[in-house]
Each structure stands twice: as structure tokens, then as C-alpha cells.
């Protein structure tokens, strides 16, 4: 997907630092998707209706062609995690992005995973 700019994006006069908050207005309380900072997200479809999405969401989709954590998306787009979660939540509920929950206390770490982590560190 090429870098996409919706017509009028820059002409709206919104401060680019403020805009990400503006575009999530009214959607903060959507709890349909509960994402963690290290939930891993990936783009799910090649057919994207660019007109139906916010420019920031298109940038997210572009990044998500490789699996990334929510924190990485946030860092690369220089947007707070909370804002990225809302944008991603919308993309997930519309089928554009898939997410995988991290290991947590609810899904306890087993020996196999610890061994894999240890091997991974030793390979560095």
C-alpha cells in the first residue's frame, strides 16, 4: 500500500499533534476490543477501501504488513498507545486487522515457552 493522503487532510488546519485525539473522539469507550500494549497485530486483507478509513488507519495498515506489537505501532507513528488502541480496535472490528493476545497471568507461561525464551536469548 502506498503512502496515502486523503484529499483535504492537510487543509483541515488541524495541528498534526492534536488530530489523532480528535479522530478518536467518541470512540474511547468502545470496549469491543481489549488490546494490550504487547498484543501483536497484523493486516488481514489486501483489499482496502482507502476512502473508508482515516489516514492514520491506513498508516497503521501499512505498518502491520509485518506482525507488530501495539507499542511498536505507537512508537513508529509517534502516537500514544491509547490512541493507537482505539484506531486498531476499529480496524479489527471491521476485519482489516487481526490481533493476538500476549501471554499473561491468565495464560500462564509454561516450561516450553521459558525454554524457547532462554534459547532465543542465548542465540543473540
Amino acid at each position, binding site marked *: 500500500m502506498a503512502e496515502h493522503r486523503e484529499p483535504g487532510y492537510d487543509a483541515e488546519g488541524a495541528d498534526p499533534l492534536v488530530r489523532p485525539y480528535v479522530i478518536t473522539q467518541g470512540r474511547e469507550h468502545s470496549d469491543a476490543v481489549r488490546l494490550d500494549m504487547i498484543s501483536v497485530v497484523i493486516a488481514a486483507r489486501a483489499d482496502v477501501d482507502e476512502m473508508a478509513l482515516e489516514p492514520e488507519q491506513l498508516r497503521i495498515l501499512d505498518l502491520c504488513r509485518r506482525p507488530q*506489537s501495539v507499542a511498536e505501532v505507537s512508537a513508529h507513528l509517534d502516537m500514544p498507545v491509547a490512541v493507537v488502541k482505539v484506531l486498531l480496535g476499529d480496524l479489527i472490528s471491521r476485519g482489516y486487522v487481526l490481533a493476538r493476545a*500476549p501471554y499473561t497471568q491468565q495464560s500462564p507461561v509454561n*516450561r516450553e515457552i521459558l525454554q524457547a525464551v*532462554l534459547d532465543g536469548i542465548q542465540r543473540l
Partner: protein
Amino acid sequence: MESNDSERPGGPIPSAIKILVAGGFGAGKTTLVGAVSEIAPLSTEEVMTEASVGVDDLAGVEQKETTTVALDFGRITISDQLVLYLFGTPGQQRFWFMWEELAQGALGAVVLADTRRLDTCFPAVDFFERQGVPFVVAVNCFDGAYRYTEQEVTEALTLDERVPVLLCDARSRASAKEVLESLVRHVATALAAPV
């Protein structure tokens, strides 16, 4: 709904796991993360809830306040199924240890002790003890500072004897790897014999 389903055309979605790197201001947290990360440490902002007791609240009912926290982190790809993230806790924030969300789901933590001011890692040690997060203490040996022995650190921090203490150089990948390996082994031990 977030799915635990890893199946998708083109392969599985990896799942992530995190390790925290905590310690006082300037203890070398970001340096340690950078020493082992496959990417240059990234930085992000997250909103954390801070439990605090209201001034007017005689009943002592907990009130929640939110704070924006800057975290830096690195990444180690373990396999196509598993990614490890290392998060440095913000050293400049006095009350980061109130943010339980930070510790939630963490595999474990590295407490970086700064040999020039050992006491700055007390809050981190207390925090992980209270949260039940397994941790190791890595003593970052700054040039010219007093060189503690592991035993001295264990005593100064009144650590449980089972908590591993290592001397390290946060700038060295080999040393940082040793710290992380020690943490993972410690987590495995804690798993076998829960405290």
C-alpha cells in the same frame, strides 16, 4: 473481540511476552535494553492508572488517577511464534511503582541497581515483591563507584536469598544476556516451587 486464534492465511501470528527493566533514574535501563534488542530502543506513551487516596476522603476510599508514562522498549524475536519485548520503566517518575498495569502479565523483571546510589532501586524491589513478579537484581558497575559483592547487595536490599544478584555492565551484550538468562532460569525455578 481479540482472538487467541493464531491461524491466518500466510502463517501464525506470533504471541508476545514482556520483561520489565526497572531501577532508579539513570541506572542504565535504556542502555541494557539497547544492548540486547534487535531494534534501536523505541519509545512510547501509555496512560497508567495510579491508585491514590483522596485528600478529602476520610473514608480512605481509593481514587484512581491517570498519568501518561513514557516507556522505552526493545524487541527480541524468539521464533515465528514468539516475540519478547523488554520495557524500561520511566526512571524520572517517582511513583511508577504504583502502576500495576505495567507489571501485569510480565514474565519477570530485571532491577538495575546503580552502584553510585544503591537505595534508588528500593522502590522497584518492593514493587515486584508485592506484585509477585519474579525478578533478579543486576548491579550495574559504573566506573569509579564502589564495587559491591553480590552478598552485600542481597543484605543491603534485604532480598530473599533465592533472588539472583549479578554484577553487570549494561553496555555489554554478553553481560545483558547473562542477566536475562539468569532471570528466565529464576522464573523457571519459581514455577517449579511457587513461593
